[in-house]
């Protein structure tokens, strides 16, 4: 099963390598990883998506806690949460198909953030299904490049991870 973990870590050099090293060393594969600052100074939040069974997930959480720079690990899969990912897609486009692509973009409430003579860049935010769907639809044109932020997630309601 795929799990989403919110990991609060100290914002110090070398912390990412410790977390990534732990996953690599024990053979757990990271599906996606996103890191950014939080409202608290010197504390960053990682959202890690990992494919694992329950027993391995338990080990991952315990091993993460063994890292001195890891402050808190929360399993967001267990509770109602909102998750999002942002993707930028560069599609080969010219006068002949630009309008068609624009229609797809509007349907997905995505945005065109760059237009050039032979290409456009589409920005789309959403959950995994939505992103896969638009990438699939745009692939009937030539996709030149795709870049994704990795998933971020937050709990619904007033409960906060601190």
């Amino acid at each position, binding site marked *: 099963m795929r799990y989403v973990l919110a990991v609060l870590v100290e914002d110090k*050099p*070398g912390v990412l*390598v410790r977390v990534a090293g732990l996953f690599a060393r024990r053979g757990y594969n990271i599906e996606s990883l996103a890191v950014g600052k939080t409202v608290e100074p010197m504390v960053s939040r990682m959202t890690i998506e990992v494919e694992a069974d329950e027993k391995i997930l338990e080990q991952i959480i315990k091993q993460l*806690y063994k890292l*001195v720079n890891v402050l808190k690990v929360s399993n967001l899969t267990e509770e109602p949460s909102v998750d999002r990912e942002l993707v930028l897609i560069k599609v080969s486009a010219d006068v002949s198909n630009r309008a068609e692509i624009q229609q797809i973009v509007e349907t997905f409430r995505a945005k065109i953030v760059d237009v050039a003579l032979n290409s456009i860049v589409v920005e789309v935010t959403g959950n995994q299904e939505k992103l896969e769907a638009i990438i699939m639809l745009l692939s009937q044109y030539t996709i030149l490049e795709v870049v994704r932020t990795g998933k971020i997630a937050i709990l619904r309601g007033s409960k906060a991870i601190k």
Partner: protein
Amino acid sequence: MKMSGIQMVVESLRNELVDTIFCSPGGTPGDMVSYLSESDIRLVMYCHEQGASHAADGYARSTGKPGVVFCTSGLGLTSLVTGIATAYADSVPMVVFAGRGMSASSVYDAEVDMDISSITLPSTKHSIVVRSILDLPRSIREAFHLATTGRSGPVVLDLAFNAQTDTGIYRYPKNIDIRGYNPVYNSHQGQVSKAAKVLAKAKKPLIYAGGGIIYSGAHEELRQLAEKFNIPVTTTLMGLSGFPTEHPLALGMLGMHGTYWANMAVNEADVIIAAGARFDDRVTGRKSDFATKATIIHIDIDPAEIGKNICVDIPIVGDVKQVLLQLLQKTGPQDTQSWLSQINAWRSSAPMRYFQDPEGQICPQFVIEQIYEQTKGTALITTEVGQHQMWTAQFYKFNKYRSFMSSGGLGTMGYGFPASLGVQLGCPDDVVFCIAGDGSFQMNIRELATAVRYNLPVKVAVINNQHLGLVRQWQEMFFQSRYSSVVLQSAPDFVKLAEAYGALGLRAETPSEVIPVLQKALSAPGPVVIDFRVKAEENVLPMVPPNCSISEMVMTVE
């Protein structure tokens, strides 16, 4: 008070009550080392960084205090990796100070510069790069705190050059709070009560004790618990000397080269208390067959050990000493007499034995038993890794707390001899024996120079079978005796070699020479190397072949 980084390090070591530093200096922290030589802290220099780290490890295991190592960064630290990894695998408290030559980071790839934090990442409890003198005192306090609390382990301090040479105000924090580090000492009372309830109903209880007993100082509580409720105790390799081998309730070691009766007891027990042990594969054999009839209570200070190798029924996260004390207050099994008789029946059906022909070659087991006899069991023992290590575990009687130092988790050949020098420094009044193989002794044999330099009267018993014996045994048993890379015919003359270093070299070639040679070694004031020429093809038995159930022991090799 204003002082330089180097002075701060020395002052902090005083605050941490460090009395000995194990070092192999380079350019840096060379000036630190010369400053230290004027302080009251003893500086012991080794030939090679690996030797210094194993010595610090031996010092830590025998005294319970953290071992402190000084080395230069880069090449110095890369030589130290084996020692750090050895300590990590066996949860030994150690603090390594590595001094950088130039910059705070490896941006310039300067001489002797290396990203040691990354190199040691998987084998340290934590590492701290100290980039500024402002962080120095706190970082040192953190390193000692991390190394010695919770599940202990090695911590590396990587000191940037300017952090050593700048001056600043020194204030050493007494107490320290590390937000992401909160080891659980006090266990969940509900879990302890649950364990006690299960234990009270047990008919065939068994305690399986690991190295955690020694690190938490729980040997007394373990003995009391065993005696109060008549529960037999088996120990892991790391648990040896945590429970007296000669105690009537002691079953010896379990697992691959454990005793038949200990393994049978694991197999048949209805309740097992795993105390500070981690269900390593050398202990469990085939995991699916391990202790299938037992309700398993697992006590460990490291939550990540719970459920890692074996699914347990009642996990208790906490300090094993505290938990055993709490179990002592509760009710235990009522009557274990028939269980103990059953175990004794197994014991007499397959006792540990070897046959020493008085006219034949020396049996290695005989040498080990005689070391025990001649020192009346008072010696502190280190071993290298191999057959001699297993025979020591099987035939030496560890009745004294913290008297066995050996690399278990990593299995580092080359550990025992330098470790014995650290043990001797930590325990100057004790007789220290290093039981070594002819293969493993050669791995750090150069530290004979250190033994002579500091006149450390360590006795090295080389169990010389002219082979890498354990590998040879596996090739014999599992690869139809197709021997490859295990014969050591080109080994040096250990007697001459000892003499070349300025130590005493002795040799025993027949069984009748064993006792006189040991007596001579014991009466010698300095370091001694004894070359025991033993039977080459003796095997360590019984043995659980790899991936077999521990009930499928091989008792003899035809």
